[in-house]
């Protein structure tokens, strides 16, 4: 338990505002793959008797009466939970600035953001508090903060990890994911978290391999598809150089590198298709947050008013605005033009990526155009290709449900940036191998930001 108490101390003096609730470590006698490991969970993961707020005011006083399946699995393998990490409210954000407990700072540069919505978990790993942290990824909410914080961020295949007990955002896009500081730990963590759970009907029956024992970074003959549409929308020279250096190293290791382009008009729809599907599903998923059975309840003259007051005060402005867009998209007269249109385009995107990954072992691209933006940075033009494609291409992993991970690629101004790879469904073994090859090529492993 010595390692655990050390981590708990570090968590108490966290400088990145990453921790929402500290959890007094409880000895875990189970022996397993996580024996003696302190674990931090994103605060949308239900922990029995431990406050779970999903960073929303309406859940400020919510103490779940059950553990999420992933929590049960962590405990079964000897892991000890020491804290709940900050996140964008209800996981509906990509910056972790919309956390009810305030923004999470990037451990490499406090003037910059950690990225979201699993920012707290990423910062906790990057600042050396823990080696394993759990997050969730609906658009890139594990893989983007992993890039900004210089750590490994994994979103496995949809259905690999049970979502039971994880506060839903958009059920057809949500994945439980996690952060580690190296690929070996990442492969081990999947063995712990994955597996069929009868409480989640979308949970997969596919066999969970011993990934950590099957690691093999020999990429000779592996076909790697460079995501050209992303490259064309990048404008950061340093990022492009880091990326090309990496590709050359992989070539030296015998990998076959080829550029692949998808229909660019289709790629420009990545963000709006995500935004529509996510908001439509989220507005329905959060209809249960009414203050009547749990959560912060405001007074009112009748039931209707109690619910309206509770939801008005309980949700941040960004959330309520996105619910309005979601409801707009679900209304009968708009569904065809908005929600269903987005779902049809999702199928076209998935089909193109599927075809590509039938020929290639993985799709690769920088995880974002730049290192972590400044907290007070100016707003990016949301109609530019840089925003629509470079900053949002990882959502392809959520549309397809394919396994995707981010691994550190290099630094700029002392801050890290990562590279993202996506493989075909349930091909995590191949993904970890390529990830390991990248780790060995860059030499970037077990990075911890100096936190003064």
């Amino acid at each position, binding site marked *: 338990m010595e390692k655990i108490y050390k981590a708990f101390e570090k968590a108490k003096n966290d400088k990145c505002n990453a921790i929402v609730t500290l959890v007094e470590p409880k000895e875990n006698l189970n022996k397993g793959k996580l024996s003696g490991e302190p674990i931090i969970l994103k605060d949308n993961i239900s922990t029995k008797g431990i406050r779970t707020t999903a960073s929303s005011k309406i859940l400020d006083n919510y103490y779940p*009466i059950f553990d999420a399946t992933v929590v049960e699995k962590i405990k079964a393998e000897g892991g000890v939970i020491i804290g709940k990490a900050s996140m964008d409210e209800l996981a509906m954000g990509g910056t972790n600035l919309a956390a009810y407990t305030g923004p999470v700072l990037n451990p490499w540069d406090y003037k910059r953001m950690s990225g979201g919505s699993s920012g707290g978990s990423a910062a906790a790993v990057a600042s050396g508090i823990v080696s394993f942290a759990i997050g969730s990824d609906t658009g890139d909410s594990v893989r983007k903060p992993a890039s900004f914080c210089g750590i490994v961020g994994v979103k496995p295949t949809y259905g690999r990890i049970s979502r039971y007990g994880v506060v839903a955002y958009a059920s057809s896009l949500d994945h439980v994911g996690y952060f580690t500081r190296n690929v070996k730990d990442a492969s081990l963590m999947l063995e712990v978290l994955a597996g069929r759970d009868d409480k989640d009907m*979308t949970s997969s029956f596919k066999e969970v391999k011993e990934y950590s024992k099957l690691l093999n970074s020999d990429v000779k003959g592996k076909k790697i598809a460079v995501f050209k549409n992303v490259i064309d929308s990048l404008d950061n020279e340093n990022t492009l150089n880091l990326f090309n250096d990496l590709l050359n190293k992989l070539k030296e290791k015998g990998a076959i590198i080829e550029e692949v382009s998808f229909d660019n008009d289709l790629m420009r729809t990545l963000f709006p298709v995500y935004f529509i599907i996510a908001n439509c599903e989220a507005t329905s998923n959060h209809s249960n947050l009414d203050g009547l*059975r749990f*959560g912060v309840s405001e007074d009112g003259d009748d039931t209707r008013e109690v619910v309206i007051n509770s939801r*008005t005060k309980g949700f941040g402005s960004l959330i309520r605005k996105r619910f309005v867009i979601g409801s707009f998209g679900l209304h009968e007269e708009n569904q065809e033009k908005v929600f269903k249109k987005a779902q049809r385009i999702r199928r076209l995107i998935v089909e193109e990526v599927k075809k590509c990954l039938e020929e290639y072992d993985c799709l690769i691209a920088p995880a974002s155009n730049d290192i972590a933006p400044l907290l007070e940075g100016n707003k990016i033009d949301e109609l530019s290709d840089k925003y629509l494609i470079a900053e949002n291409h990882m959502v392809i992993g*959520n549309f397809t449900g394919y396994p995707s991970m981010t691994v550190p690629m290099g630094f700029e101004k002392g801050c890290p940036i990562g590279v993202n790879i996506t493989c075909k*469904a349930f091909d995590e073994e191949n993904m970890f191998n390529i990830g390991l090859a990248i780790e060995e090529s860059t030499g970037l492993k077990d990075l911890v930001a100096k936190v003064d």
Partner: protein
Amino acid sequence: MIEKEYIKELAHELMFDLSEEEVVEIQKEYETFSKQLELLEKIDTKDVKPMPYPFENETNYLREDVVTHVITQEDALRNASYSKEGHFVVHKVVK
């Protein structure tokens, strides 16, 4: 342009209110959103079925009709602001 009244109506349907600034912000954000919608309209989706799940292969799993999980009344009401005689209560503030 999206009408303020319509935005307020959508909010009320979702059981919450919006401040005046928030309504104005939505109107502005809707401008960007509708341009992004135009990007969608450019894509021909004739004969393309909506995709509600990432994996559409059917399951044949059905849960057996066996009681597997009940919680105590105490756990059920643990997070309730108001409860009485084992019931959740929506408390009315009498002005």
